[in-house]
């Protein structure tokens, strides 16, 4: 039984990792006041370009870099449209998702059916071999640890650093930040690019480590769950980890219940993550004080300097 629990926790962690990347990136983006709904598209772009890079060069590291870069570049299309051309953020984000899905499918055509070297889990002598906690703490592939590191850095950045504070100010009150002298548009560009980079990395994780292959639409809605996660976490990085494990985990739990022969209808269990998201959304949204304290006040609004 302990074996099963350990193994399930391991699997839940890997399932959570792409969500952690994408949600952390979107969190920073939204904290600066920009709502980017194109996460699904950016994840797919990161997945296909990361896979292609490893397929061509054979180097997983280059694949990771490619995924990050591709995601960031895709997000900049969104950035230019919404920040410099002042287009509607919701519509532009949706366009990015549709565009990203189509572009990744097209570009990925020649990579369907190919395979690459999977990114292997690490093995630290002594530590990984510790009973029970050994594999849970020290037996994942490197990107899982990287995700947690990114999360911690983001938490520190937003909460304790000067530029993090500036970013939050830009998201809460862009006109005031501008009046003080901060370059609102530039800061938002950086936040958008970070969001894109992380979404791309989340997607690349899927095609490089989770299942070393490329298939159209392989993110299967994870980008949208990441968006929900940010709200679920009340825009606080620490909660993102909890939420990601929860949502990544529900799918695993559902499959486990089936394999164990518990007679719960599979389709009902498959609905759970989505219903859970709605329930959570309701629970946290009704506490409007908490929302006000954490939600960036300028979220979704275009910024035009009033001189």
């Amino acid at each position, binding site marked *: 039984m302990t074996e099963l629990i350990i193994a399930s926790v391991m699997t839940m962690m890997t399932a959570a990792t792409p969500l952690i990347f994408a949600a952390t990136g979107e969190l920073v983006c939204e904290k600066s006041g920009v709502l980017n709904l194109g996460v699904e598209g950016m994840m797919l772009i990161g997945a296909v370009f990361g896979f292609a890079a490893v397929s061509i060069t054979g180097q997983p590291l280059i694949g990771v870099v490619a995924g990050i870069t591709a995601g960031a570049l895709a997000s900049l299309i969104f950035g230019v449209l919404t920040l410099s051309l002042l287009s509607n953020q919701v519509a532009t984000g949706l366009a990015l998702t549709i565009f990203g899905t189509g572009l990744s499918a097209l570009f990925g055509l*020649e990579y369907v059916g190919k395979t690459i070297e999977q990114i292997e889990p690490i093995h630290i002598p002594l530590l990984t071999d510790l009973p029970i906690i050994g594999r849970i703490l020290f037996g994942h592939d490197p990107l899982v640890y990287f995700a947690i590191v990114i999360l911690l850095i983001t938490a520190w950045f937003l909460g304790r650093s000067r530029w993090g504070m500036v970013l939050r100010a830009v998201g809460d009150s862009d006109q005031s930040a501008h009046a003080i002298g901060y370059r609102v548009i530039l800061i938002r560009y950086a936040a958008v690019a970070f969001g894109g980079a992380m979404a791309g990395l989340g997607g690349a994780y899927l095609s490089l480590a989770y299942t070393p*292959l490329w298939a159209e639409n392989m993110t299967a809605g994870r980008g949208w769950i990441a968006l929900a996660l940010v709200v679920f976490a009340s825009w606080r990085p620490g909660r993102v980890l909890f939420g990601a494990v929860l949502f990544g985990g529900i799918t695993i739990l559902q499959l486990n219940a089936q394999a164990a022969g518990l007679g719960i209808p*599979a389709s009902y269990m498959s609905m759970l993550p989505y219903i859970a998201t709605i329930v959570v959304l309701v629970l946290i949204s009704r506490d409007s004080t908490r929302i006000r304290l954490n939600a960036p006040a300028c979220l979704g609004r275009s910024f035009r300097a009033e001189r």
Partner: protein
Amino acid sequence: MRNLLRRTALALASALMLASGAASADKLKVGFIYIGPPGDFGWTYAHDQGRLQIEKELGDRVETTYVENVPEGPDAERAIAKLAETGHELIFTTSFGYMEPTLKVAKRFPNVKFEHATGYQRADNVATYNAKFYEGRYVQGVIAGKMSKTNTVGYIASFPIPEVIMGINSFLLGAHSVNPNIKVKIVWAYTWFDPPKEADAAKVLMDQGADIITQHTDSTAALQAAAERGVMAFGQASDMIKFAPKTQLTSIIDEWGPYYVERTKEVLDGTWKSTDTWHGMSDGLVVMAPYTNMPADVAALAAKTAEDIRTGKLHPFTGPIYNQDGELVLEAGKTADDGMLAGMMYYIKGIDDKVPN
């Protein structure tokens, strides 16, 4: 610039010619509707290999077209009709969900011949065909029975339809024939193709103690997830050995080529008739990939089992067979007929789960 204009004009002209149906040659046009991409290395890949076989053997008299990623439903009807409108005389629709659309289009184009894979409704110009994949599953079961140390096999199933359920039953019958203690853990993925989900299913099954994984879904993800942990697994629809060189035991290969070539020839000769074909190993429609990563005696046993099925000496569903409730569904010595298998919605004895719904 002028060159571009000229090329565009030429292109437009040829497009107009296409639209007006002017034939480029007198070749017979054969069309294919695919549910996925030929590169999926699974179900659609196998069909495409069959298509390529037609071109190889009859290329001087036949040309082929395919439309990929056609969703089941109203879009399918349009795609099939488009093939019929553009001069294709033989059209293969390669997924169950194309059944109603195929029948509808067949009514509108009585001179076009349709072949619907895995369906159960025919018409004067609609034939159905399927392969006895369950024969391959039996062989897989025999191998699993010999190779499993934990006596637990993980089965990633797609949808609770007779096709899949008879596969599970056949697998178990094969396993029990060499190892009565084998148990099967089943997970329903409710998809034919979703790599991350298939990988998840494989991981979960392995977490729960399965040391052999088999699947009725189409991607290589489960095989690869198993390979990552060094767990043996079976490939599906095509030989997936290059995705798991050290852990693939064998794979059921869908060999549509011979059937496709035969039917195309019949259209060329004018002898095509609507039939229902359910062929297996004996007709070469189901072939096993080389037996790898197992001891020589197991490989020999597997090969012999397959050969016995091929020659008709052995039928996977030979009585006595009991269902889950303990009732005798097939008497001793009798073999199941096609009808019993085609409607099989129950598990045989030895499976503890219930069939969903």
